[in-house]
């Protein structure tokens, strides 16, 4: 018999939220912006408790260690919705209640948000893992080609985003391998290019460290960066920019859904609807933690011209055409990818 144990220790670390008059959401840090949840709290007269997590594995562990009904809403990587559904963590939501008709067509992502024709989540925000840089320190023309990064010209001036999926995806695209075609066999082909990139880099950085490194001039280029890194720094450092090189970039997308077993599915659905409404989308897109494009195209009516310029609103058609989705590895490939990443870190 298969048991999930060992999770309880982690569960002890998670605050157990109260259940009455409160909505409990397991989210990414962009939802923790008070400006985002305040309008919903005022409208429905409830308190929204937010618990931040990073990485699907950590989110699943928190849900595994929680009592049924403890959580109402889950934000999750769009490519991992199927994994959450398979684990029984997400409840069906009525597709007709969601404004997906107003979405950028590429962001409806029905192949990710629905399972067997049933909708379990809806895309709320997206962006790109590509090349971010300081345009006063590097030649922007060089950033159009990933090969320049390992040419020696920028050695010691590069930070690699510390997340194996997008960076391995970028390295794969640099080798002419589509992210969807990464297999255990093709992964071996990524080893040398990945290690070469590490050799040319100064550090492997999480979000905060990468932003600090770019802002302080510690590095000039961030592989895996994008608007989510540079936008929040734009006001203080307008020299930071990003581009999608000729080899392409990765498109990240996050989805939101209702947790299976919630005791207040209607309120949870209202929260989901608020988040994907133009008002909620505008606040989520410009959240204090990180910016990103809203999935709902009608948000363009709410965002200011300055905000749209930072998000590169008018260039989305081109960006969307040249970006691929994250790799979606099965358990074995995921382990192999993480092992390769660990080996790279130890180089």
């Amino acid at each position, binding site marked *: 018999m298969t048991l999930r144990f060992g999770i309880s220790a982690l569960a002890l670390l998670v605050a157990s939220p109260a259940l009455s008059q409160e909505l409990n959401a397991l989210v990414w840090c962009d939802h923790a912006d008070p400006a985002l949840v305040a309008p919903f709290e005022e409208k429905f007269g409830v308190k929204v408790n937010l618990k931040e997590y990073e990485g699907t594995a950590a989110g699943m*562990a928190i849900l595994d260690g929680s009592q049924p009904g403890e959580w109402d809403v889950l934000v999750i990587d769009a490519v991992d919705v199927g994994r959450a559904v398979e684990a029984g963590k997400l409840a069906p939501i009525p597709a007709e209640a969601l404004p997906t008709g107003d979405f950028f067509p590429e962001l409806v992502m029905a192949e990710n948000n629905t399972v067997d024709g049933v909708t379990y989540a809806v895309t709320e925000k997206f962006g790109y893992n590509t090349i971010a840089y300081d345009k006063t320190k590097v030649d922007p023309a060089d950033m159009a080609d990933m090969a320049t990064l390992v040419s020696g010209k920028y050695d010691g001036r590069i930070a690699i985003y510390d997340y194996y999926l997008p960076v391995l995806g970028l390295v794969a695209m640099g080798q002419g391998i589509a992210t969807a075609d990464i297999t255990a066999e093709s992964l071996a082909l990524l080893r040398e290019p990945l290690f070469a990139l590490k050799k040319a880099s100064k550090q492997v950085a999480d979000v905060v460290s990468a932003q600090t490194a770019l802002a302080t001039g510690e590095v000039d280029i961030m592989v895996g960066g994008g608007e989510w890194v540079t936008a929040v720094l734009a006001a203080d450092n307008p020299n930071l920019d990003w581009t999608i090189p000729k080899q392409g970039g990765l498109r990240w997308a996050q989805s939101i859904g209702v947790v299976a077993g919630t005791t207040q599915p209607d309120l949870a659905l209202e929260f989901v609807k608020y988040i994907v409404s133009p008002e909620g989308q505008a606040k989520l897109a410009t959240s204090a933690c990180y910016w990103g494009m809203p999935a709902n195209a009608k948000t363009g009516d709410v965002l200011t011209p300055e905000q749209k310029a930072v998000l590169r609103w008018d260039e989305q058609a081109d960006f969307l055409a040249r970006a691929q989705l994250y790799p979606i590895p099965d358990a074995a490939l995921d382990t192999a990818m*993480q092992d390769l990443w660990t080996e790279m870190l130890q180089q």
Partner: protein
Amino acid sequence: MSLAARDRRLGWGLVAPALAWTVAFFVLPFAAMVALSFARMEGREIVPAFDPGNYARFFSEWPLFKALLNSMEITVVVTVVSVLLAYPLAAIIAFRVPVRWQRLALLMAVLPFWTSYVVRSYAWLLVLGQNGVLNKALLGAGLIAEPLEIAATRTATVIGFVHFFVMLLTLTIYANLVQLPTNYARAARDLGAGPVQVFRFVILPLTLPGVVTGAFLTFVLCMGDYITPQILGGNNELTLPQLIMLQLGRSGNFPLASALSVVLMAVITLAYLLSSRWLRVDRV
């Protein structure tokens, strides 16, 4: 009931809360962790088993084992450098600073403790960066032509650790030094010993318990620290705690994380056994 039996019952009664606390929050979780370290992953599921595979993997896969070596190397350097810096500082406070100012001197020495650990690490990043305070000062003074590459290196990690642990060691060594009767050194001098001999044959042996206790605490805290190498080391190499965090937060591989934690516990236990001869908590 005899007096002795009553005393025994009273003793057990007094110790019971602490014992229950230790069993509930250390012994049982530790036993669960050891049991989990022998489980295995099948896909994304944890399967109970008695499989030493996680330990075999740790000792046979170089990127995993190297994390232990990295932790050991950093910890030994940090401990030695911290002792070498903290001992003179503690001695100056104990012997050179007037008694009425010693409390203030100690307060100044531990002032950085008042700052959040994470904030202090990021502050060091700003000091050690290419455009940081240190490089700007050295460049401004004409001592270097190019900025030093310190941030995002092991050196930065060591500096961050040493800054923290010098404070800790200063306290433990100072506490030991001020307990030394001044007559010992005076007697040695009367018998013809020079300053070096007084230190080597009188003061150092008598303060060794404080040094070893502080060094042991430094070793334990440094071996188990995750934040400093993560922020200051630039993630350019993994220490054992970083590797454990990767297994927990990213892979969801709780069995391997448990096995790595048991290894970490074993190393610290070994350090305790090696230093136990000199460990004297009552002297600090």
